[in-house]
């Protein structure tokens, strides 16, 4: 284990900083230094511009009643309706996606860190996770469409007369969204499990617990904040994904439940992302004011999730000595 010297991360350089001012450097080095500064500062400027601009436009166009009224079809989109349905849609989809991703992701992470045998399979799964993480969400979306349009999957969306399965619903979109969130959940759960030192496990074995109950009673509770971080990151990804929504949730602006058992989940709808996309000049609605307002709400959601990640990682972890 590496012994950490107490102090700030950048401290190792504090003593070095005294050795010669940058003005004594050669021209090339000074240009490099300047470029590094420009790169760093421009990152901050870009981020500040995006957030500032969205806040300015958003507050300008956002009215409270927009949050509680459903979208309406009308000639002048800028005057009618709000985005209540898209907000509910985002919420619903995020919940479905993460509810699937957490158990699956935690299970895979536990297997990788605690069992991981045969080693070849573990390596293959590890690289598989990277591949899933790198798969474009468009591809996931149309793969999902392919799977859920099979006849026996009719339960998850709805079947038109003549037996064609539509394949588009909250469930189908949620399942593919869980694949988007999965790598995040696995990644941070693994990190948390790896951070638990060996003697904790050994202590549990010494008390007569087998591996399965050690995982359930000792390891998972200690990894809780890691799991929460991964879940929150995953929720951010789900809330921000557009391609899966456009392709797998259907094009209806309002939430349209299907009849029967779990009708809402089998119905189609929209989310904030698809609402923004449709109301941008690239979509059919073309009402930039409403796109700005909805995008601002979406940005707030994402920033909030980001903030939660910060909070979780700051909260005191169990201290292992």
């Amino acid at each position: 284990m590496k012994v950490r010297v107490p102090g700030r991360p950048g401290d190792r350089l504090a003593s070095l900083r005294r050795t010669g001012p940058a003005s004594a450097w050669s021209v090339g080095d000074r240009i490099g230094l300047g470029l590094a500064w420009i790169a760093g500062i421009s990152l901050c400027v870009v981020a500040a511009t995006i957030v500032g601009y969205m806040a300015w436009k958003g507050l300008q166009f956002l009215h409270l009643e927009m949050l509680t009224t459903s979208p309406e079809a009308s000639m002048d989109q800028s005057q009618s309706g709000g985005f209540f349905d898209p907000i509910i849609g985002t919420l619903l989809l995020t919940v479905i996606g993460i509810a699937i991703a957490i158990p699956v992701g935690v299970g895979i992470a536990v297997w990788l860190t605690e069992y991981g045998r045969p080693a070849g399979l573990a390596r293959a799964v590890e690289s598989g996770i990277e591949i899933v993480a790198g798969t474009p969400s468009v591809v996931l979306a149309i793969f999902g469409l392919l799977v859920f349009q099979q006849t026996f999957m009719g339960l998850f969306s709805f079947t038109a007369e003549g037996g064609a399965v539509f394949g588009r619903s909250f469930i189908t979109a949620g399942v593919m969204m869980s694949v988007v969130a999965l790598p995040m959940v696995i990644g941070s759960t693994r990190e948390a499990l790896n951070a638990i030192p060996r003697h904790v496990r050994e202590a549990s074995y010494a008390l007569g617990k087998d591996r399965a109950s050690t995982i359930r009673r000792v390891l998972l509770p200690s990894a809780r904040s890691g799991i929460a971080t991964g879940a929150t990151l995953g929720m951010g990804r789900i809330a921000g994904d557009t391609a899966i929504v456009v392709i797998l949730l259907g094009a209806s602006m309002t939430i349209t439940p299907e009849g029967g058992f779990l009708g809402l989940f089998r119905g189609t709808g929209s989310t904030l992302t698809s609402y923004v996309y449709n109301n941008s000049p690239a979509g059919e609605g073309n009402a930039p004011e409403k796109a700005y307002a909805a995008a601002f709400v979406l940005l707030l959601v994402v920033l909030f999730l980001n903030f939660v990640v910060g909070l979780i990682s700051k909260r005191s972890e169990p201290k292992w000595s």
Partner: protein
Amino acid sequence: MEAASLTDAPAAGGREDDRTDRRVELTLGALASAILLLIAGMVIFVLLKGMPSFTHNGLAWFGAGGSVDEQLMNIFNSPSDPDDYVYHLRAWPLLYGTALITGVAVAFSTVFSVLASIFVVEFAPRRLRQVIEPVVRLLAAVPSVIYGLIGILVVVPWVATHLISESSKESVAYVIQLDGTSILVGIFILVIMICPIMIAIIVDALRSVPDKWIHGARALGVNRWRAMRTVSLRAIRPAIVAAAVLATARALGEAIMLSMVAGSVGFAPNPLDGLTFFLEPARPLASTIVDNSEGLSVEPFGQTMYAFAAILLISSAFLSFAGWAARRSFSRYTLGDR
């Protein structure tokens, strides 16, 4: 390391416990293997579904020839009799657009990310460092549709009024209309989108360079910039490659933002047009799929879209795998044992 030795821990308790333990291991192992099944399923199903488009065109599928948008339109309007399905497609403009936008964006953002990472790790004052880290996380978290919205409502009009002159418009008027949606805007915003991924990986790698190495260089009288460039950057080359590769995979799959700002025209920008080249529109594969999601139920058209998806899936899978392998070898051989 740790986990491997743990697996040798004897399962305490009697036979009953032993069996539960085994069952848990098998269940979780099956769950993990499902990932591999998912990937295999994706590759097989998408490839099978897209196959007719490849078989009807042969290798010419990848070539140039005619207007790709017209061909797609013809495929979409195929007669309903399966024997008369139209498959004729020359996908070059889409492939070229994908490669062009991705390649240029990744090249730019590699340079930018390396500089920014050096700044974060070495030169940033403590206060600024504390700001930049959340900023990078934020830029990574902003949904692509918001980038696209800002792009289409702010950057595109700006480019249309300030960068596109009448003469450049006229010079290409006979092939394409310049309205501000262009690969320039697409690349610019894509750089902002993929930088955070690269910076996160490169910063981690730079931090893992042993202090001793830098101290050694400094003791020889090398200044801080040179020490970074000649010691740290050299040491983390595999990580930079991994970052670039993973960013490429991400850029390949970017659909929404590019379909909003890059023009959504199946046009191959012509480098012979000089600087106007960057103001010409294009449409990568991923955007093509999203733009045409309504037509997926038309059989031959859907098959063509799945052919695009197969190309994307296979190339991004290779890239992700390469990035994973590069990162893995980096942590195992270079700096793992500090």
